[in-house]
């Protein structure tokens, strides 16, 4: 565990030593802020629902950018060899990198806490629902990070890793809006695959174990697949 924490520490710091982190955060805040507040005053509702509806798709675009370098860069530069010949297990490496990506997502969300604070000043905000929404956002980020980490372990090319992860994450995010493409018989399954549907439940303030289990199992599957890829190499 100590080793995983050390790797987490290094990876998390790495995000903030390059300008890319700040650019990603700035763009994320600009897009969410603009899309959310452009309609907020028209709706005249003291709630964060519209902010949360943006997140499944936005995170599907942002998390691959966050995770794509985690393995691909190391494999490309060759530092992967140094990492693997240090006394660390595959699990330490995967967990450390995964936690760093989730922590970065948390760092991305922290500035948006100003939205509920601001709203609670001008209206009556339901804090329970808001907190559930943030929790759901973190869970969703974890699921996407699992997918992104897996994509990154597949290739030495960051761009390919990013695109593969984006395709999978965007699919999970919007599949419930494409139900008419699928035959009747598998509609239930397809709906179950949708990150959007599960996230919307949580963001309504309903903490159902099925939704939690969904995100956790997507994350776990991603990490497990990463482990398999590492063993194969």
């Amino acid at each position: 565990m100590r080793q995983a924490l050390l790797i987490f520490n290094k990876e998390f710091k790495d995000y903030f030593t390059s300008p890319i982190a700040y650019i990603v955060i700035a763009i994320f805040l600009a897009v969410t802020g603009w899309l959310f507040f452009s309609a907020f005053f028209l709706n005249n509702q003291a709630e964060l629902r519209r902010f949360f509806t943006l997140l499944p798709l936005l995170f599907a675009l942002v998390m691959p950018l966050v995770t794509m370098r985690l393995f691909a860069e190391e494999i490309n530069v060759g530092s992967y060899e140094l990492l693997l010949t240090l006394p660390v297990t595959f699990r330490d490496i995967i967990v450390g990198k995964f936690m760093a990506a989730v922590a970065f997502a948390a760092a991305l969300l922290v500035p948006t806490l100003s939205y509920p604070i601001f709203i609670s000043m001008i209206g009556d905000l339901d804090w329970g629902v808001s907190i559930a929404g943030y929790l759901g956002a973190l869970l969703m980020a974890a699921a996407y990070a699992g997918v992104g980490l897996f994509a990154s372990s597949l290739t030495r090319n960051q761009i390919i890793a990013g695109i593969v992860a984006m395709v999978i994450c965007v699919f999970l995010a919007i599949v419930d809006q494409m139900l008419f493409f699928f035959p009747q018989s598998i509609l239930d399954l397809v709906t179950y695959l949708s990150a959007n549907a599960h996230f919307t439940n949580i963001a309504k303030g309903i903490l159902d174990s099925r939704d939690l289990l969904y995100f956790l199992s997507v994350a776990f599957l991603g990490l497990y697949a990463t482990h398999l890829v590492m063993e194969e190499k």
Partner: protein
Amino acid sequence: MIHVEGLTKYYDEFCAVDHIDLDIKGGEIVGLLGPNGAGKTTTLRMLTGYFQPSAGDIRVKEHSIHQDSLAIKRLIGYLPESAPLYKGMLVYDYLEHVARIRGLDGAAMAQRLFELADMCGLRGIMHKTIDTLSKGLKQRVGLAHAMMSDPEILVLDEPTSGLDPNQIVEIREIIRKIGEQKTVILSTHILSEAEATCDRIVIINKGRIVADGSTQELTSGKDRQGRVQLGFMGASTEAVVDRLKGVPGVSAVTPQTEEAPGLTRVQVLCQPGVDARPEIYQAVKATDWVLVEMNQEAQTLETIFRELTRES
């Protein structure tokens, strides 16, 4: 210390390392020598736990690579070829990160970083970003990385490739200093380097060990075929070849092109392990030829290396 048995590695169909057996004692400096693509790096990568062997076993002390690769990784410090370090980090941050992963902390860590900075000459560059360093400096940071936990075994993959002559001398001196107490395994295709730094040389070709021993043992090896150059005056080439062929211990006689009128030169290939010079002298003494030249070709590591690794 290290016991390698039947080590084999396949990349798909291609056999990169083919049943290597090797025993390395504590305190040896072993040079793995071989042409490019001979399997040196692959062997080292299996030794350090980066690659899984396709077959065979590596035991370091009592640990086997299959059961306890983590324990082996703790015992080995490894510097891959061209030191692929994290580019964006400061030298100090990087070494600190490695130190923590190697289980150092607090005062012990500060002490170790200080020692390594001195030993590898990193004092002035601790605050620099790794990708701004020259190749030689990067290599030294890589050495510090490898020696962080003061490991009993140091594995270096082409530690001097791409360095300028001054840097090569510096790195070699560091390696020799370390080798006084540690077991060092290094790979190289620079023969003089192996000769200068290693106690023992293992030549690999096409994934197999083709020679193993000290430089001296290799160059004076029992199964080497000695070559003797002879020059005569007042003798015809045919007569010389005829006579020398009959000398015991001689396996072949090749006439050389005539350089001066009246001078006959031949090269005699001796039978393995036989010095035929006394017999040749006796045979020549009985004739009226004038022997003006008799030279045993010196066996250097280079001639041996070329002989063993030549494409045939």
